[in-house]
Every structure is written in structure tokens, then in C-alpha cells.
């Protein structure tokens, strides 16, 4: 690799830094108000069109939602101003510890997340065992 390449690379890196700073300054990300039940249901329907929702819980911070659909757990959560969805077997949903759930998806593309679901009581798990 020539010195010309590295000069060009360094110049491009500076340009990247400036553009990212400009994007941050502009504050033009999508608005992401906390999830509400109706919105979460709509987003779940978009993300998992084949699934019907039996029960739905919204995370305490409004950035995620968990649904029970038969033997599956459906999860949507915010990443930046976007949305990510994953489904896992309901049996793989761990019990909350101090109101917090650590959800692992077994997917390199989606690392585990830790979310507070204080509304997810023991009843949900009891139902799951039926």
C-alpha cells in the first residue's frame, strides 16, 4: 500500500468524522416515542405477520415489547431509531431477575438484550407451563 493510499484514507476518515458530527448536530433521526400497546401490536403484526398475539408486555422504558404467541415469544426492540424483531421458543424466555429479562436470540446478528419488564409477572410463566 502506497503512502498516497494512506493519505487518501486519512482524508476520507476526516470527512467521515465531519459528516457524522454533522448528522448528530442536525438531530434528524426519526422520533421514537415510547412504545404503547396499540403501536406495539401494529409493529408486531408487521414483523410477524403469521403470528397471533396472546399476551403482550411493554418494557418499562418503552423501548421493547414482548409477546406470547402460542409456543413462541415475539420480541421487538429499538436499535437507534430503528426496530429489530426476533422470535424464540417461549420455553427459552428466562424468568425475570429483579424485573429484568436477559433475552438471548441464538443469532450472531442480534446479541442478547437486557430489558426491564416489571409487568411480566409469574402468571406469564405459569401460563407458559400449561
Amino acid at each position, binding site marked *: *500500500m502506497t503512502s498516497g*493510499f494512506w493519505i*487518501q*484514507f486519512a482524508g*476520507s*476518515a476526516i*470527512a*467521515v468524522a465531519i*459528516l*457524522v458530527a*454533522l*448528522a*448528530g448536530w*442536525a*438531530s*434528524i*433521526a*426519526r422520533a421514537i416515542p415510547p412504545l404503547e400497546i396499540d403501536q406495539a401490536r401494529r409493529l408486531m403484526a*408487521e414483523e410477524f*405477520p*403469521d403470528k397471533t398475539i396472546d399476551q403482550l408486555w411493554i418494557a418499562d422504558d418503552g423501548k421493547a415489547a414482548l409477546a406470547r404467541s402460542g409456543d413462541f415469544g415475539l420480541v421487538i426492540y429499538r*436499535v*437507534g*431509531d*430503528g*426496530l*429489530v*424483531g*426476533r422470535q424464540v421458543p417461549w420455553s427459552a424466555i428466562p424468568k425475570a431477575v429483579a424485573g429484568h429479562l436477559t433475552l438471548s*436470540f441464538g*443469532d*450472531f*446478528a*442480534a*446479541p442478547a*438484550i437486557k430489558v426491564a419488564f416489571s409487568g411480566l409477572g409469574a402468571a406469564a410463566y405459569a401460563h407458559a407451563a400449561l
Partner: protein
Amino acid sequence: MLTPPFDLVTLAVPFFVLAVILEIGLARFGVTKTNYETRDTLTSLAMGLGRSVPLLLTAGVSFTASVWVYQHRVFTVPFEAWWGWAAIFFLEDLTYYAFHRWSHERRFWWAAHVNHHTSQHYNLSTALRQTWTGGVSGTWLLWLPLAWLGFSPAQIAIQQGISLVYQFWIHTEAIGRMPRWFEAVFNTPSHHRVHHARNPRYLDRNYAGILITWDRMFGTFQPELDDEKCRYGIVKNLGDFNILRVAFHEWVGIGQDLLTARSPRQVWFYMFGPPGWSPDGSRATSASLRARWEAAQGGQETKL
């Protein structure tokens, strides 16, 4: 001529930077509705910046192969001939269509291309979210027939650069639709928004580079519909902005699947089947997602 006298993409970098600044500025002051999220922008631009390193590592191999094939050409297309440039415009664009379609419909090449689609935004920075593994996946082999036909490696490289630079400006929501005649012939922001959308109706459509006519000819064209807003990203969006995850997640997925393969057939389909293929059909391919969506529409939608 074997090496191009200039690198069009490098020359265009200042234009890319100014265009992104303009797009951000227009959105900031409410002229357009474009969105930029800081980490998403950093990921896109870092992918574009980082691309130059792996590209440099594989460029020698692809260039050497191109020169070797050119030395065994069947015709000689003069570099200065206007008709040669007209011919390579169409032939290179057709090659791009084939490459792009293959890159969506076969998992091995999708693994190299998917990173370009991982942003949930559609703005000019998304255009720069380029592959790091395209060279090692060997997609450059598709351009070798042009050298065999007699186009010099330099001419091929220049036309590839023209195509890449053309495709930059279509990554925007700031432009609605171009004049009707232009939309009929050329790839446009509207057509390419469809290509980046994850709505079942829009999956695996509009593979064009410069001319949208290839999609119209080969049955992969889908117009953008006013009543179905594009939702950008991939079928299973990424869980963070880690640049290594963006670049390599599908390769890791292939590796994990190969470890569970129980037959040569499964090995083959995990590598070269459609993205989302699984032995028991428990995952979703673009085709199955589209079929389910069509069924949900009551069978009113017909295949293109």
C-alpha cells in the same frame, strides 16, 4: 490499455461528501423529510471507508485474471471507439443486473452483499455502506466475459466506476419521482427505494444498476406504490451497529448452519440456496414471505 488513466470513484468522493452535506442540510431545515441517525450514519460511512482495504487486497487477483482473459480475447474493441463505449454501457449494465440478482438470490453472494441493505435508513450515506467481502466471494468473475469479448480491463473498470457513481444519487428519499420517461428507462430513487425495502411486496425487486429496463425485461420490476411506504432494512434487522457484525454476520450464519448440516444437499443449500433456506422450511425466504403475503391479500396479487 490495461489500467484506467483515472479512478472515477476516487474522483467522485468530494461530490459524495458535498451531496451528503446537502442532504443533511435540506433535512435539517425542513426542506426534505430525510432522516439520519448518528450511529447508523457512522456505520454506513465506516463501511465505505473500510472497503478500500479489502478491495486493495483482492484487486490484484481480479486485475490479473482480467488481463489474462483479455490476452485470450476473441475480438479487440478499440478504446477510443464510440461504439465500444456504447456497447460496454449496455453489456456492463446487464452484467451488473446479473451480479446483483445473484447477490440477492444465492446466500453465498448475499453474505457479501447484505451489509449494503442493513441500514434501516435510506439516505446518501446508505449508498456508501459497501461490501468488504465482495472480492473474496468472487463476484468479479462475472465481468471476465467482457474482457474475453475484447473490452480492455481499463474500459471495464471505467464503466464499472460510472455505474457505481450513478448509483450513489439514487439512494435518497429527498427526490420523489423523476419525469415519467426517465422512470421508464433509468434506475431512479423511487425504483431503488423499492429495492431497499423489506415489505414482502418489494422483496427481491429492481436489481438494476443504471437501466431499469433489465428488470422490466426479466420480470423483476416493481414500481413504488404511494399507498405502501417502504420499510427499509433486511428481513431480520441487525441488533446493533457493530461494524464487524454488519460486515460478517451472514458469513457467521453460514458457518453455524454448515456445522449442523447432515447431508451434502444441506451443505449445498445452506451455501448456495436462497437466503433463508432451511431443511425443514422453518425459516423464511423472500419467495415464501411473498407467497404468504400474497395469500394474506386473498390471492389478488399476481406474480410479476
